[in-house]
């Protein structure tokens, strides 16, 4: 714990780690020890590109350490192919088909190019006519150029021009869109996010086809230069919260962002809490649903997990499927989830408290059975509970990290250890096994993994408090947890809202939900101006008249006079 604080202290001085990292990097750099790389970055270099092609190429080679995956293709263009030019790209990062066909081929074969004489003319022509790709732009700053190259763009350098043309050719191998592995639903879209930001943004846009869906991009990470985009519905999302997200993201000064969890930890309101204050999902439809409720999505390149802010406590018990299934069933399931969360929190603690302090609370027949089972057990109930809970957590952790081929062995061995052998050996009582397994199953019923795992951790605190003071201790611990929860905030929004502070309008959308036709307003906590969700009178009704219509009725068939 103390070492953690030492680290934290170091963090407060951002200059120090940065230097260390770059110094470390420099050691690795084989090609050019004379020119320390950090200098280039430290200056936020104003080094401009040179007129000479060979010098430019040398510079780039030097900066990138002559890495073999940077391809330099030299071509001759212009009148009588007198002008030297070079096409640069990083192998694997670019769409090689686009580079070959649209770039090199068109430059080499273009008839227009051979007529032009001056390099300036050539540049203009290439930009305007030859390159049939979008996202072409010219740059002069050396650092920007290298960054652009590293991002997967293709560079064109022409001798005698102090400008570089970059064209967007990002591509290369990426994972196809697959079914998400978390947040699985029976009914609903089977699409899951991929590791590529553009794809992910497009997937959300495919659901919300509105110009109000605004995306802002930025690059975070001094070394990794990870693309981070924030996405929100203009008018629906609260402007204050959007601004808060922006400032918090801009504040981040770190060498690398490898997963959305990095960003999450750097922008969350409260770090000393086991509860997640930022939601994440792998499902585009869930992101869309949250955007419509005024939340803001943060997409990070390189991970299929998209962050959603602000996140409320109740939100972690809701699934996207709640809204696609009928209201009674959805409410029943939601109630079940909350119950399961409660069991996963206090299950073993209740057992320990009841069997060691409050035997009078257990029904007579049951207490006799539990007493009979405990006759041969040598440990107090709390030790028994801790042994079993630890065993289960070890099993779960081991099963999670193991290769799939060995995974089944763990479950078999685990089932034997937890289930039969432990009981037969008289180490634990069968009732304890039931309690632990029910708790274990209940902990998997919470849809959000972050919330479920926090319950697992807090459970141990509950067991200990129940073992020291019985139900009194359990209630105390529970109060502590509630007070802590009420003190949390997610991007300025109280975590426990709409319970605390109580909001009658939002309360309708918590552990239960209204029928879809009655959900006329968006939850007010995160929504800006545009509160109305749907029109009035959305309740479906049968046609007013249900009278039977006789199709083959003739005049005089009825008994009217």
């Amino acid at each position, binding site marked *: 714990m103390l070492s953690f604080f030492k680290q934290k202290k170091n963090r407060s001085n951002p200059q120090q780690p940065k230097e260390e990292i770059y110094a470390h990097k420099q050691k690795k750099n084989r090609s050019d020890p004379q020119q320390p790389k950090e200098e280039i970055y430290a200056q936020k270099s104003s080094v401009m590109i040179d007129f000479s092609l060979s010098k430019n190429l040398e510079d780039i080679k030097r900066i990138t350490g002559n890495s073999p995956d940077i391809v330099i293709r030299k071509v001759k263009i212009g009148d009588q192919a007198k002008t030297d030019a070079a096409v640069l790209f990083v192998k694997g990062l670019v769409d090689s088909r686009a580079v070959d066909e649209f770039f090199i081929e068109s430059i080499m074969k273009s008839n227009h190019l051979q007529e032009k004489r001056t390099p300036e003319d050539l540049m203009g022509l290439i930009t305007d006519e030859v390159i049939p790709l979008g996202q072409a732009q010219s740059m002069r700053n050396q650092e920007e150029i290298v960054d652009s190259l590293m991002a997967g763009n293709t560079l064109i350098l022409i001798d005698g021009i102090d400008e570089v043309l970059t064209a967007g050719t990002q591509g290369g191998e990426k994972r196809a869109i697959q079914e998400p592995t978390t947040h699985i639903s029976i009914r609903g879209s089977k699409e899951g996010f991929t590791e590529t930001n553009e794809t992910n943004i497009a997937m959300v846009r495919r659901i919300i086809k509105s110009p109000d869906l605004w995306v802002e991009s930025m690059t975070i990470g001094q070394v990794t230069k990870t693309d981070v985009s924030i996405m929100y519905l203009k008018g629906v999302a609260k402007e204050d919260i959007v601004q808060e997200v922006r400032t918090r993201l801009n504040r981040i000064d770190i060498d690398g962002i490898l997963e959305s969890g990095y960003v999450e930890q750097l922008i969350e309101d409260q770090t000393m809490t086991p509860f997640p204050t930022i939601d994440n999902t792998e499902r585009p439809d869930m992101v869309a649903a949250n955007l419509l409720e005024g939340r803001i999505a943060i997409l990070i390149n390189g991970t299929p997990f998209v962050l959603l802010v602000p996140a409320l406590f109740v939100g972690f018990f809701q699934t996207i499927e709640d809204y696609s299934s009928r209201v009674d069933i959805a409410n029943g399931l939601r109630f079940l989830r909350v119950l399961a969360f409660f069991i996963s929190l206090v299950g073993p603690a209740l057992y320990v408290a009841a*069997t060691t302090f409050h035997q*009078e609370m257990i029904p007579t027949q049951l207490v006799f059975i539990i*007493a009979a089972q405990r*006759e041969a057990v040598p440990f107090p109930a709390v030790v028994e509970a801790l042994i079993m809970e630890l065993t289960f957590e070890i099993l779960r952790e081991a099963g999670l990290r193991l290769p799939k081929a060995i995974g089944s062995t763990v479950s078999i061995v685990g089932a034997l250890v937890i289930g039969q052998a432990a009981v*037969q050996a008289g180490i634990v009582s069968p009732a304890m096994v039931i309690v632990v397994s029910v708790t274990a199953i209940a902990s998997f019923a919470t849809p959000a993994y972050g919330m479920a795992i926090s319950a697992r951790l807090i459970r141990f605190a509950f067991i200990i408090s129940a073992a020291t003071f*019985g139900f009194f201790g359990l209630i105390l611990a529970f109060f502590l947890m509630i007070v802590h929860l009420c003190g949390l905030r997610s991007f300025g929004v109280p975590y426990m809202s709409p319970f605390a502070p109580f909001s009658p309008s939002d309360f309708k959308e918590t552990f239960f939900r209204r029928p879809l036709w009655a959900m006329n307003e968006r939850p007010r906590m995160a929504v800006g101006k545009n509160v109305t969700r749907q029109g009035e009178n959305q309740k479906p009704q049968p046609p007013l008249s249900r009278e039977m219509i006789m199709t083959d009725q003739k005049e005089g068939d009825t008994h009217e006079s």
Partner: protein
Amino acid sequence: MNRKGMFLFLLIISVCFLSGCWSKRELTDLAFISAYSLDLTEEGNYEATVQVISPGNITSGLQGGGGGSSSPPVIVYSVTGENLSDMDALITKKLSRTPYYAHTDLVVISEELAKKEGLPPILDELDRDIEFRTTTTVVIAKETKAKDLLTTLTGTDRVPATNIVKMLDTTEKALGENVRVNVHELITQVTSKGKEPVLPGFTLKGDPMQGKTVKSVQSTELEAAPEADGLAMFKEGKLIDWIEGETARGTLWTLDKIKTTIVSTSWEKEKKAIAYKVMRQKTKVSATLTKGKPKLSISTRAEGDIAEVKVPVDLTDPHVIKKIEKELEKEIKSEIEKAVQQAQKDKSDIFGFGEVVHRTDPKAWKKLEKEWDDRTFAELDVDVKVEALIRRTGLVNNSLHTTLKKEEK
């Protein structure tokens, strides 16, 4: 949080552990007492008996049961002493675990103790004790030692205490000659001036010595078995008389405690020819005072089915049904009257007529209160009205007797 804050936090956390596991009781340190009985010794002291569950033997057939039916599910310990709390402490000389009364189902008081000492001296401790529940059932051991009811092993429900309580429940529901009374109800009735308590009696049929061994429950016919038998009538906390059979049921009619029961009536000189199963009933007791003299009226309305017909009767005829209803009303009325007569003879207001009068006219009650049991109640004018309704005739209409008789013709 800085280092100082962390240190403070750890200090606060450690305070939790300093208390240890305060007042912690493991299940294996407790002796669960399922039943408690009180006898009077020859010297005039109490003899308390506790029935302690041995958990290992109670769940035979479960894992590690081992003992099964070869060892008894309960063990009984006795101790003599001057008062109940004393005996509570003395009993630990014989027990390896702390006696635990929260799961005690049954209190048995011997007839002798109830007659000589009365209930008030023993009820105080039962009421005052923290662990002991006031919802525990109280019964009187009739013509046997209270201890014998605890030592006798039982068959269907292996814990004798559970067996007796369940038996009481079942017979109260199906027969209506017994009533389950708990400590709390008993105390309120003993202290009330306008109502005297009744308690169910239990007797032991068979040899108490044989009933102690596991052998007894290994045969199909038990050597000794407890049996519900009558109601004990109290006056001023002391047992004075027993109410039995139909009179006991009459008492329960008046107390509005009948759930279902069978009433039989004679038909054309055949005794108990028609049986009637009461499914629902409501009894109301009301009082009227004329010139300060109270008059009680009991009105009962019973609904039920024909349960059995021993003689040929045409049940399809509404007139016949009406006639049977009249017979049943007479039968029920006589039961109630018998009960009232016995209570008046013993001068014990077990029906709570005094409370009814109190509710009707509180001022008059102030005058009547002093001499209620001995004079006013004993000479009270009680009017009984019974309405019996036959709703259905069971699964068949006419019985086979009726069909046979018709064929003869």
